[in-house]
């Protein structure tokens, strides 16, 4: 039982981690706490529907289509909504992302209709049997791909020039402007990457379930994940995601599915009290 829960928890957690990572990237670059992250994830699932069903693209092209679509969407969101609002207080920035999710939901329903859709991508769907433990191949694929994406991102973030610029921008907006970095481009890129990561998460979730705007609620579990991990921390987001996945499975399995929210949000409250900067984040120096 336990190992079973841990495996499925880690698999789900990897997807959350992926979405949370996208969230962190956006937050680091533009200081926007993105409540629409769940809806961006849903967009990924619907991009897959368009590519695979409406356009009939083969699988690799479908993937490319999703990534390009998500990238363009992210850039468009940055320039249309986030930039014009630039540097406003906390609440307007939160609200604009909520407005974004209302708009995206309406647009999706206008294009695809409200009913859930079924999408079958050629991903492995069998089961590995290891002794007592049965592991869904889809879970394993989701976890492996999520980890690959995370690794790719970390390499990009740490090693590439663009990643360097991104980190520089995140550390200080003014300094970045002064040193000649084109902050807009970097921020737009962050939104593009954040949206792509969410979209990949969405593709996997819609394989586990249906393609539906209601997937947003699951995507919102990325919120506690990033807070537990520490808003600014890339590894924190990933580990936070894994932790939320594990808590979800163990709490549902051993106690009750209702208890899930409590087991996620009570620790979150405790963490806010004890280590407000998250488990893996860095303490921000500031005066009281």
């Amino acid at each position, binding site marked *: 039982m336990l190992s079973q829960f841990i495996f499925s928890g880690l698999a789900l957690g990897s997807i959350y981690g992926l979405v949370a990572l996208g969230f962190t990237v956006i937050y680091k670059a533009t200081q926007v706490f993105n409540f629409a992250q769940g809806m961006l994830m849903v967009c990924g699932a619907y991009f897959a529907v368009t590519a695979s069903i409406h356009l009939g693209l083969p699988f690799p092209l479908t993937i490319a289509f999703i990534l390009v679509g998500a990238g363009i969407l992210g850039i468009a969101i940055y320039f249309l*909504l986030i930039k014009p609002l630039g540097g*406003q207080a*906390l609440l307007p920035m939160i609200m604009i992302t909520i407005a*974004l999710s209302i708009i995206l939901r*309406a647009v999706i329903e206008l294009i695809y209709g409200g009913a859930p859709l079924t999408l079958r991508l050629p991903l492995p769907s069998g089961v590995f049997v290891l002794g007592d433990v049965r592991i869904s191949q889809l879970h394993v694929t989701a976890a492996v791909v999520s980890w690959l994406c995370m690794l790719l991102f970390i390499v990009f973030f740490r090693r590439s020039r663009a990643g360097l610029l991104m980190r520089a921008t995140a550390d200080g907006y003014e300094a970045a402007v002064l040193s000649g970095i084109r902050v807009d481009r970097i921020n737009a890129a962050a939104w593009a990457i954040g949206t792509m990561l969410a979209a990949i998460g969405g593709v996997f979730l819609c394989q586990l379930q249906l393609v539906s705007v209601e997937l947003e609620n699951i995507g919102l579990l990325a919120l506690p994940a990033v807070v537990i991990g520490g808003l600014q921390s890339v590894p924190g987001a990933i580990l936070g995601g894994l932790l939320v996945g594990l808590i979800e499975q163990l709490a549902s399995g051993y106690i009750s599915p209702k208890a899930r929210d409590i087991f996620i949000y009570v620790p*979150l409250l405790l963490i806010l009290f004890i280590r407000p900067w998250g488990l893996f984040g860095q303490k921000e120096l500031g005066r009281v």
Partner: protein
Amino acid sequence: MSNGVTAYLVRLRHNALPTTLRVIGVAVLLAILLYLPYVLQFRSIFGVRLSNMQLLNIGLSQVNLTLISIIGAVSLNYLTGCAGLVSVGHAAFFALGSMVAAATGMHLKLPFLATLVAAMLAGAMAGVVAGLPSLRVRGLYFVLSTLAIHFIVVFVFAEYQYAFHDVTGVAVGDAKIGSFEIDSGIKWYFFLLPITVLSCLLMRNTLFHREGRAVLAMRDNELAAAAAGIDVRILKLKVFAFSSAFASLAGALQAYYLSNVAAEMYSLNFAIQFIAIIIVGGMGTIGGGVIGAIVWLLLPSILMGAATEVKSGPGDFASFLLAHRPQIVNLIFGSIVALILIFAPHGIAGFLRPLWQRMIGGLPWRGRT
């Protein structure tokens, strides 16, 4: 003697409309407020029957629910706009208010008005608890602590509902004052209107006195406020308690109005709706909360009514619009919020305030952003 300051106050008064005009203004406003429920109930004005669209597709129960939401929105605006404590957990206090009203009515057999008071007291106490994280964390981290509190309260509500009430929800008692039962739209209107006006006035009045002004100072600069002797931590808890008491009152009133409420009602979207209201209306002003609630609750209905009227037009397009009315209304609505955020950061109230001030000169709904 201070000539400059007196001159300033006199100037305020002189910019105002002449007294007779002001009297007429107040009288007309009052007459409209008194007459409004009858117009909506009988769908006619001075005996002339009005069509639904002439009444903007608005009904009396919408107005009553709007009155309740105004209390909720203004209390959130007090917390978030005036004290600078951003909360996404406001629905939790609605839930708490309805839960306490139901519980004190059912288990303690308290009468209607007493349960409202009990709900306010419970809201104030819970507000202190919900405010505790504000002593440790600020900004976004605080927002998330309110999110956590939202989920925890809704969980408790659901457990209470399943343990003591029907699976379909928590049934609150009848709204009875003595033997007088508030059972019609018009009765509710005349019960809610004074409560709403009074709640708004109570919150507004604080801002013109010592501690309420300190709340605004704390929002603008916590450090300077502390240097002026304001105990910022205690004040935050007080504001939380004050605002939550009104939110709980609104929750209890809503529960009585609907007569049955379920845990599922208090979703995150419900809380987010209040944030949207104060942003649309205008942050940090009482008027902002009022205008925001009116717009947010009534505009969709007006849009929906208008969409129903649009029956002609190029065939396919019109039928597409008709079939997707809700989505189109959502789309328009989300876009309006985004546009207001980008182009009118002070909300509709911020937009109207200069006009209003020029008209009456004074600062009746104190403008602050």
